[in-house]
């Protein structure tokens, strides 16, 4: 959840035309959310035509659900920070680069263009005033509570990744110390100072780093092929909705040139990557006759001290495809003809330019529709005396990130985004919160199955077969089953086929809180390639009870497998046709149910910390989201897992 303080600073930042942002104050307000921190609320009833979700349409009616638009040059990313070249030289990208960009910008204080935004981000728990730390840095007591939970199984208490991240960041700071001052969080002490031991002060810095990293992970968006992960002031105010009812979408054209971020005409497509500079074409060699044209296309580039206005280039009329008119002699008549044609084309172009200008109806930066009068008071650093050129104020939708409302909302209603279809352990690991009754939760039975195997040596052969081939064959079967049920998103099937535990497949702990589909790590195809390996680990992870209490196909199959008669097992090993799978591995039996019950009960008993809550207490936890105390988060997490198991158990007994 967002911990944003001092919202006025943020509103001030968004309202400054230099920051090329448009915050739709006529539609939404920022104020404290009952979920904790700030949230975004509808300022009035907003009607959204469900068929109107095209970015193009927004140009016709900028009010159609556009809540925030900000130019990519003004988001805080590894590509927009002052240390961008240092990050490039160090070959650091992704989340590591974003954290460094943030730390260095933060260390500049008011000299950073993002100062107002940065100062709104909080790294401490508003209730306790303590740093909001990732699970792996919690007190042992709290970590112990997680014992036996899916979160523990997922390794949320493992410090390895955080330590590696910190080490790499320290190294970067050290390597660049001769260029840029080391930010305080990365400036480790070698000696004790003022009665504080070096160890103690360094641990404090490590914790600050961890808290910042977690805060950024919960705020970062995946932008495009160039910027990758970035912070978007304002966009991170929307709280998370886990129930598939998010109100807004994040939109940005992602398919840009990975080298320069341009949408097209950047030259990298035509001439190759920047680092292929040593293989430059020798000018004496290119004689293929097609090169002569179009060089003005790439000349409209202001960055190089050279500004070309491609609008009225007089010599780019020729299409490469145009046939060469065969002439024996350039006569004066021919010259006249060329001249009059060029003139006609020039006039036509001028005319179309004029028309384009009239037609444009873009949103202007800093324009927030109905700006309240009292806002003018704190405008002193907007430099109202020097009016910025119009072309710098107009926001080009193609180079912007948008937050767009997707559904109609009522006045006063909080507006939610989704950070992805994430289970509570994932939410806890990435963002430090959990939600009650999370539909993406599940409980795995891997440990119980292994225990069962130990107690029943006779089934070892069967589980070996399952590891070697049975599981992957069954995976295919489930996939085809799901395809038949499509196109509806299959509930609980985190990666489409439920065959991979999300931790096995979403290695990247810090994914973005944009669309689930965008992070692309649980895509069916990739899933098949990367995580459905023929090893025990992968099928153990797929043996889970899904929310709200339904065993996955894999759990059923395993309970069947271990209870089949010797003959039936032989039959299916010999012939794994679909009908055999259906007959032997899908339909439940009494014996299989008994095994399932045993596993579930054992799983239930494995919780080290079992806090029994009465229904009233659960009610108290049922706020949609909660970022408050860690204990409450753990309670929610365990309560949800317990509820899943209880439901499963009761359904078996019935």
């Amino acid at each position, binding site marked *: 959840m967002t911990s944003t303080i001092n919202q006025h600073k943020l509103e001030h930042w968004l309202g400054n035309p230099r920051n090329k942002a448009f915050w739709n104050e006529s539609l939404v307000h920022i104020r404290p959310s009952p979920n904790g921190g700030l949230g975004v609320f509808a300022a009035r009833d907003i009607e959204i035509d469900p068929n109107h979700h095209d970015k193009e349409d927004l140009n016709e009616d900028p009010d159609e659900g556009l809540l925030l638009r900000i130019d990519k040059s003004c988001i805080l990313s590894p590509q927009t920070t002052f240390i961008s*070249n240092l990050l*490039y030289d160090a070959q650091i990208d992704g989340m590591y680069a974003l954290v460094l960009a943030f730390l260095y910008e933060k260390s500049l204080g008011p000299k950073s263009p993002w100062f107002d935004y940065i100062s709104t981000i909080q790294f401490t728990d508003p209730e306790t005033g303590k740093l909001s730390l990732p699970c792996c840095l919690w007190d042992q007591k709290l970590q112990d509570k997680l014992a036996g939970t899916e979160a523990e199984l997922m390794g949320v208490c493992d410090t390895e990744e955080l330590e590696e991240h910190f080490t790499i960041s320290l190294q970067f700071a050290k390597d660049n110390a001769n260029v840029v001052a080391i930010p305080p969080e990365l400036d480790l002490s070698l000696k004790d100072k003022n009665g504080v031991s070096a160890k103690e002060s360094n641990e404090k810095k490590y914790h600050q780093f961890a808290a910042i990293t977690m805060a950024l992970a919960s705020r970062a968006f995946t932008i495009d092929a160039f910027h990758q992960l970035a912070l978007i002031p304002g966009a991170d105010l929307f709280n998370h909705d886990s129930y598939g009812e998010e109100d807004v979408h994040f939109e940005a054209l992602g398919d840009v040139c990975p080298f320069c971020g341009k949408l097209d005409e950047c030259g990298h497509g035509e001439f190759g990557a920047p680092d292929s*500079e040593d293989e430059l074409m020798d000018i004496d060699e290119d004689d293929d006759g097609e090169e002569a044209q179009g060089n003005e296309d790439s000349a409209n580039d202001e960055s190089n001290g050279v500004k*070309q206005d491609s609008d009225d280039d007089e010599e780019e009329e020729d299409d490469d495809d145009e046939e060469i008119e065969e002439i024996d002699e*350039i006569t004066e008549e021919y010259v006249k003809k060329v001249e009059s044609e060029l003139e006609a084309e020039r006039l036509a172009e001028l005319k179309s330019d004029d028309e384009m200008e009239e037609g444009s109806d873009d949103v202007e930066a800093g324009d927030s529709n109905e700006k309240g009068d009292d806002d003018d008071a704190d405008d002193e650093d907007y430099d109202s005396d020097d009016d910025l050129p119009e072309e710098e104020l107009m926001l080009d939708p193609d180079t912007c990130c948008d937050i767009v409302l997707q559904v109609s909302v009522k006045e006063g209603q909080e507006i939610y985004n989704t950070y992805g279809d994430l289970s509570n352990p994932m939410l806890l690991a990435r963002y430090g919160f959990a939600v009650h009754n999370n539909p993406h939760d599940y409980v795995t039975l891997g440990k119980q199955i292994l225990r069962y195997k130990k107690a029943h040596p006779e089934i070892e052969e069967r589980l070996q077969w399952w590891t070697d081939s049975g599981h992957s064959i069954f995976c295919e079967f489930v996939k085809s089953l799901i395809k038949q049920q499509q196109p509806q998103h299959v509930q609980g099937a985190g990666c489409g086929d439920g065959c991979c535990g999300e931790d096995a497949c979403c290695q990247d702990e810090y994914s973005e809180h944009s669309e689930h589909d965008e992070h692309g790590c649980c895509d069916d195809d990739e899933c098949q390639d990367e995580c459905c390996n023929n090893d025990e680990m992968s099928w153990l992870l797929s043996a889970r009870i899904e929310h709200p209490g339904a065993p996955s196909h894999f759990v059923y199959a395993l309970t069947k497998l271990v209870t089949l008669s010797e003959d039936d097992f032989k039959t299916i090993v010999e012939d794994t046709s679909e009908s055999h799978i259906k007959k032997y591995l899908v339909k439940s039996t009494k014996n299989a149910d008994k095994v399932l019950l045993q596993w579930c009960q054992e799983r239930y008993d494995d919780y080290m910390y079992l806090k029994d809550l009465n229904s009233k207490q659960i009610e108290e936890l049922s706020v949609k989201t909660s970022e408050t105390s860690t204990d409450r988060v753990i309670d929610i997490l365990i309560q949800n897992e317990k509820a899943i198991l209880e439901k499963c158990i009761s359904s078996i007994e019935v």
Partner: protein
Amino acid sequence: MTATKTQKPEVRHCCAPNCGKVTTSSLKCPICLKQDMNSYFCNSRCFRSSFAMHKAIHKKEGVESYDPFPEFPYAGELRPAYPLTPKKEIPAKVKLPDYAQTGEPISEIKNDRTNKIRVLTADEIKKMRIVCELGREVLDAGAAAVKPGVTTEEIDKIIHEETIKRKAYPSPLNYFNYPKSVCTSVNEVICHGIPDKRPLKDGDIVNLDVSIYKNGFHADLNETYYVGDKAKADKDLVNLVETTRESLDMAIAQVKPGFAFREIGDIIEEHAKKNNVSVVRSYCGHGVNSLFHCQPEVPHYGKNKAIGTCKPGICFTIEPMLNMGTYRDVLWPDNWTSTTEDGKPSAQFEHTLLVTEDGVEVLTARTKRSPGGPIPRIA
């Protein structure tokens, strides 16, 4: 590249600046022919696609010079004075940059807007020092010729010849099909003025923007000069020119490792505001090395979000353009000349800089003999 009579008539180059290839074609521009020039083109497409540029060298009957865009709403009093002289020859001994033939700087286009900023090796820095020193000599030679009555084309000729004399290539020549070897920006011209037949007048200011290429590296520098004593007596003009000169020096003084490129604009804009002049926003300083223009991008206006930080071994330019009136610019139909929107004068100064371990080295620094230089403001 034969616009005039070639010495070796057997080797013909297509006259289209976007082609420039060797050709066996005998298609000639009939208008050039009438004016005693042989301009060959590969085919009708080369002719047609470049005609708008090519016709700049055509004389007009009965007049010494003419305005090629009589309908254009010029912002100030300055007018282009055509015809231009044909493109100048480059001897074979001079190494060409990749755009010399077609105008297309492919190496630059490939490097455009990535966030890599090149750090030069000690050997490369040596080459940069040499080419920048030569660049200074060439600019000084051009500046020495600045006086009332001299045309900007005559200055172009001097700069071209001084460049060639040093076995260097005049970087602007055919860069995106730019027709000359130097940019000469008079009075309201902000930058990229094309040398032509207009004689400089007492009371003008003129900027000479010299760039040369040698041993694989470019030097880039410019200065604004007062033409005659009348300009030096114009209080506002002196304020503009000297403020611009000072703003560059003040920005340079801050350059050292760790200095963010986006801070440069704050320094320049602050000094400009203090002296009641404005900062042009459309044109930026840039990285310069084996590429004429590359990263970093260095805006001269305040509160910009340019990316990157100074690191020892990075070479770049700062080249503030300051205007007496509005900062807004307009482009002439030649697609190069940029003038102020209100027709009031604009001044510019530029150096090529090298970030060192503890500061900065001005590679194109003035010498004791350099013409021009600061003059006191008029009270």
